[in-house]
């Protein structure tokens, strides 16, 4: 299993129970959408995967358990792309930002340059390597944010609301990039059509528990299930029939 969670719980210091026993297994190469309403615990869930937050239960990534001693390797294996690219891109230039992760892994010189080129190439941003993040469009910044974790050659790519604030063209371009990557993908979103487009499997997280786990088309086709967890398809959108 690429990602395995067993009875993962987490409570914030104020007593709010954000995760109430999460079990989830994701195999290598799978594409999974984590759906859920606001406040369902999605972001808390993501931060368990790379040990930023640790609560009860067990989390392991490609067989390696998330423990304090393993944190450096865990954070290489789990590439988290956060929702706001301005949180992720903090170095003066695109290239330096993409180099941040691999440099933390100890890469230097030509090897580091090659890694930066490879990651920027993968998201189609190679010609912008010397620009400052604030000179890029929002869509370009999101793509660079993806490159910053690809540069660490992660085993699993975790994206928090990847389509938020993107115009339709940028949204499509990002989808094309994500489809072209050879990596296990976990996408946290409430953009249901985007989940359908990119992920074969979907799970619903609500009130800190996984309440549904099935093929994305089945989940999105179950209007009652969606309504029960405050999820809705956009007006006019119908899930294409998988049998057709």
């Amino acid at each position: 299993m690429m990602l395995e969670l067993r009875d993962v719980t987490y409570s914030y210091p104020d007593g709010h129970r954000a995760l109430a026993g999460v079990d989830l297994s994701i195999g290598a190469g799978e594409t999974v959408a984590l759906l859920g309403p606001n406040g369902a615990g999605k972001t808390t869930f993501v931060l368990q995967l790379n040990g930023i937050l640790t609560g009860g239960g067990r989390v392991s990534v490609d067989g390696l358990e998330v423990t304090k001693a393993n944190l450096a390797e865990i954070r290489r294996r789990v590439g988290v792309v956060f929702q706001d690219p301005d949180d992720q891109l903090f170095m003066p230039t695109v290239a330096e930002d993409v180099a941040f992760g691999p440099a933390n892994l100890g890469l230097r010189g030509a090897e580091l340059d090659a890694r930066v080129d490879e990651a920027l190439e993968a998201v189609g941003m190679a010609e912008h390597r010397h620009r400052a993040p604030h000179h890029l469009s929002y869509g370009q910044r999101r793509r660079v944010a993806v490159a910053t974790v690809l540069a660490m050659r992660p085993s699993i790519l975790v994206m928090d609301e990847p389509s938020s604030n993107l115009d339709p063209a940028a949204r499509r371009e990002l989808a094309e990039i994500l489809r072209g990557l050879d990596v296990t993908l976990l996408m946290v979103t409430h953009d249901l059509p985007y989940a359908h487009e990119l992920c074969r499997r979907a799970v619903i997280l609500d009130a800190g528990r996984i309440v549904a786990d099935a093929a994305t088309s089945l989940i999105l086709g179950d209007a009652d299930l969606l309504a029960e967890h405050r999820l809705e398809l956009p007006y006019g959108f119908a899930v294409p029939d998988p049998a057709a």
Partner: protein
Amino acid sequence: MGAGHAHPLYREGDSPVHRLPGEAKIAAAVGFTIVVVATPRHQLWAFGCYAVLVAAVLAAARLNPLWLLKRSLIELPFVALAVLLPFVSPGPRFVWLGMHLSLDGAYGAWNILAKATLGVWASLILAATTDVSSLLAGLERLRLPRAAIQIATFMTRYIHVLSGEAKRMRIARLSRGDNPHFLWQARAYASGVAALFLRAYERGERVYVAMLSRGYNGRMPVGAAFPPARGADWARAGVLPAAAAAIAAVAMIA
């Protein structure tokens, strides 16, 4: 679009001065300024020689002298007081354009004006030929405290994000009829500043989490992409302070 790491003073170019590593240029500019400050003020010729040195570096950096002069205006508020010195200082007097001026005061004014101007020129040339990243890498290699460099790194990046947020908040305030020209409407402005502070604080937390997620361990790989200065670079950058030191030595003996 120019290189993104440009700050307002940076002039893009590919001159021998641009190519020098940041640490060598910073050390040269600081060294030159110290030598200038240590020069006896009555040796007027020495300051002329320093100006020639600056002009030579300016030419090597292919910078426009007009740009340098315009930017030097920044020192005006600092040297404005110096103009008063010849009028108010005590001591022997001399007549110039019908005015009775203090000799000591005139030297004092000259001392401030000449040294400040040369220092400003050295800093401007450093800023014009060194981009932010190379400047930060240079400071790190010169063993400036790590925390200070990290703060500077974040500042250069987030000043744009924060000013963007401040602008949007201002427009939203104005759109709801706020008119900050009146003193009693300063309250909205003040709470805007407080909200901006909170937002910046929260963003700081999120940025830190994003950094941890990419393996941050307390040390920034600033300048990993910049090769450190080699002997030849130090020698090239050292020409300016060395020449200045030679001039200063003659000025002190003479």
